[in-house]
């Protein structure tokens, strides 16, 4: 019983990362029907930005740990969204203006991810970076279930982000515009909606959440390396797809589902089976329900 509760807590934490990253995929896909394959690497860049920001604040300015954390959250989100927006401006927008085939944009995204990864490797070297500890980790033990304040913080943040984003997308005007673009890309500009601004806003939302995830991830697992974004990015993407890409609820449920599957697999099998089973689950879900759990099938018309 205790180990079950413990595993559920671990799954919630692990799933929170997937959910936060999956959001970026799902938001961009929902608006542009573009798989932003560079998003996993934007998450990696976010973790590095968090590293530099917090080391700078800690050592140069000599702030205390909690102060650094309070400043690092908005700064990391800001700089990471700058990266995302730059990607959109430099790589995706020119292609969209030309009306290029979607496939070309997807390839550009894949390549942009590779560039981020290897530019990082070339500039910072292959050595891993150790993330400084910002807050004192407190371990609670209630009835044999062990958890830390950090773990609770991660889960709480993910929940808060979900509520916030759900509110933005369903209740605000800009959210309505986002949904409208995904519904009909050609009619939306005619209604006087500035399509480019909405798209930039979408990228800001997605990338800043990736930055937040990067910061939290670096705090939880304080070792940074350039390839960390690739695998987590792919898996978060899987989470988004399993939930039904383009739907925020789907991204969260998919993220937590994948987190739960992985933690349960590790609890029962050797840990090397984790990827194997996670990807097999994806394959089965997609084969049975090709549009994911929440996705709506779009029927092809003749």
């Amino acid at each position, binding site marked *: 019983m205790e180990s079950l509760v413990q595993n559920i807590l671990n799954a919630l934490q692990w799933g929170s990362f997937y959910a936060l990253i999956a959001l970026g995929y799902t938001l961009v896909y929902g608006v542009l029907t573009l798989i932003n394959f560079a998003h996993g690497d934007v998450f990696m860049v976010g973790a590095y930005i968090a590293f530099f920001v917090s080391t700078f604040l800690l050592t140069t300015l000599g702030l205390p740990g909690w102060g650094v954390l309070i400043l690092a959250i908005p700064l990391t989100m800001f700089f990471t969204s700058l990266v995302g927006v730059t990607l959109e401006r430099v790589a995706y927008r020119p292609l969209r203006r030309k009306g290029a085939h979607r496939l070309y944009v997807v390839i550009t995204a894949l390549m942009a991810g590779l560039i981020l990864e290897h530019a990082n490797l070339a500039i910072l070297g292959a050595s891993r970076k150790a993330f400084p500890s910002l807050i004192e980790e407190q371990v609670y033990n209630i009835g044999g279930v062990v958890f830390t304040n950090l773990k609770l913080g991660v889960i709480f943040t993910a929940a808060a982000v979900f509520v916030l984003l759900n509110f933005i997308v369903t209740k605000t005007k800009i959210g309505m515009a986002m949904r409208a673009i995904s519904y009909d890309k050609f009619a939306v500009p005619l209604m006087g909606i500035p399509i480019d601004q909405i798209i930039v806003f979408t990228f800001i939302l997605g990338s800043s959440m990736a930055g937040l995830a990067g910061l939290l991830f670096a705090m939880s697992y304080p070792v940074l390396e350039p390839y960390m974004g690739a695998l987590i990015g792919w898996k978060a993407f899987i989470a988004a*797809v399993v939930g039904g890409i383009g739907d925020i609820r789907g991204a969260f449920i998919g993220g937590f589902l994948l987190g739960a599957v992985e933690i349960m697999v590790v609890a029962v099998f050797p840990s*090397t089976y984790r*990827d194997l089973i996670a990807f097999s689950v994806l394959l089965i879900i997609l084969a049975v329900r090709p549009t994911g759990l929440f996705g709506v099938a779009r029927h092809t018309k003749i």
Partner: protein
Amino acid sequence: MKRYNVQIILAVALAILAYLAQEEIIGKYALSVLMFMGINVILSTSLNLVNGYMGEFSCGHAGFMAVGAYVSSVLGVMLFAKDKVFGPALLDPSLSIWVFPLIVIIGGIAAALAGLLVAIPSFKTRGDYLAIITIAANYIVISVVENIDTIGGARGFMGMKSVVKAMGKTIDMPWMPIWVFIFTILSVWIIRRFISSTFGKGVPAINQDEIAAEIMSVNTNKMKMVAFMLSSGLAGVAGALFAYILGYVNPGSFTILKSTEVLVMVYLGGMGSLSGSVLSAILFTLLLEALRPLQIIKWVVVPFLLILLMQFRPEGIMGNRELPDFFPRLKRFYAFKD
């Protein structure tokens, strides 16, 4: 005479290649670059069948390559070499010349069966979702290999060099370049015949309009299955040759990065252009070798080049056209079919 021009040219090229390799006029390095060129040609043409002609977005080609590489390596080592795990050689090493092509083909067949992993979901799933299935298939293959300890797991598997040596001992010839050349030509030939056949016309038909194709009596499910299996099978052949050239395989060589490399070659050459794929595979191999001194920056330069390509010439070098469309005079030497 016109009918046999290409065959004669290829036979002469093979003879020259074998002679140069035998007398060691071209160095080991140049030879290995040439062999990797051949492998890249197989990879890019076979992926072009799915990504170009059928219009799907498969990005897990390296997974099938891994299946071919591992199956054929294990088989070859089991039959012809002394190994810690598999014990002494089962067959006489002098037989290796005759059995080697069979081993490569069995690797290809195994990869084709692995291709079913993608082919069967593709009946219902299309587009982005299918792309994900291919990525998942790639990861699944890698994790399976990593979890089987008898074939070395993540450490890799070796011993194929002794099979190659056994071939060389029986008849003293540079066997690997010869086999790579033959299989490269064979696979390009198979894809060309398939695409230009009446049966194979179903593949571009699916690309144009799947529903219309079905109405025109194309069995789309069967067509998809054939295309995916042929494509992954040829990738397996390429993987088998790759394993025997290096003499060592590990799961790390068949990750998404390798698949991306193949994707780059396909889109560089142009979707739906076989000669484009061949050309771009050759150019890309040379480019990678030329950029080798840059080390890690190479992987910044190559994606950047592709991004530029997507911005300014998204259809690739050749677009949808073939070589004779650019050089009509080639038709004098060979009767190209449409």
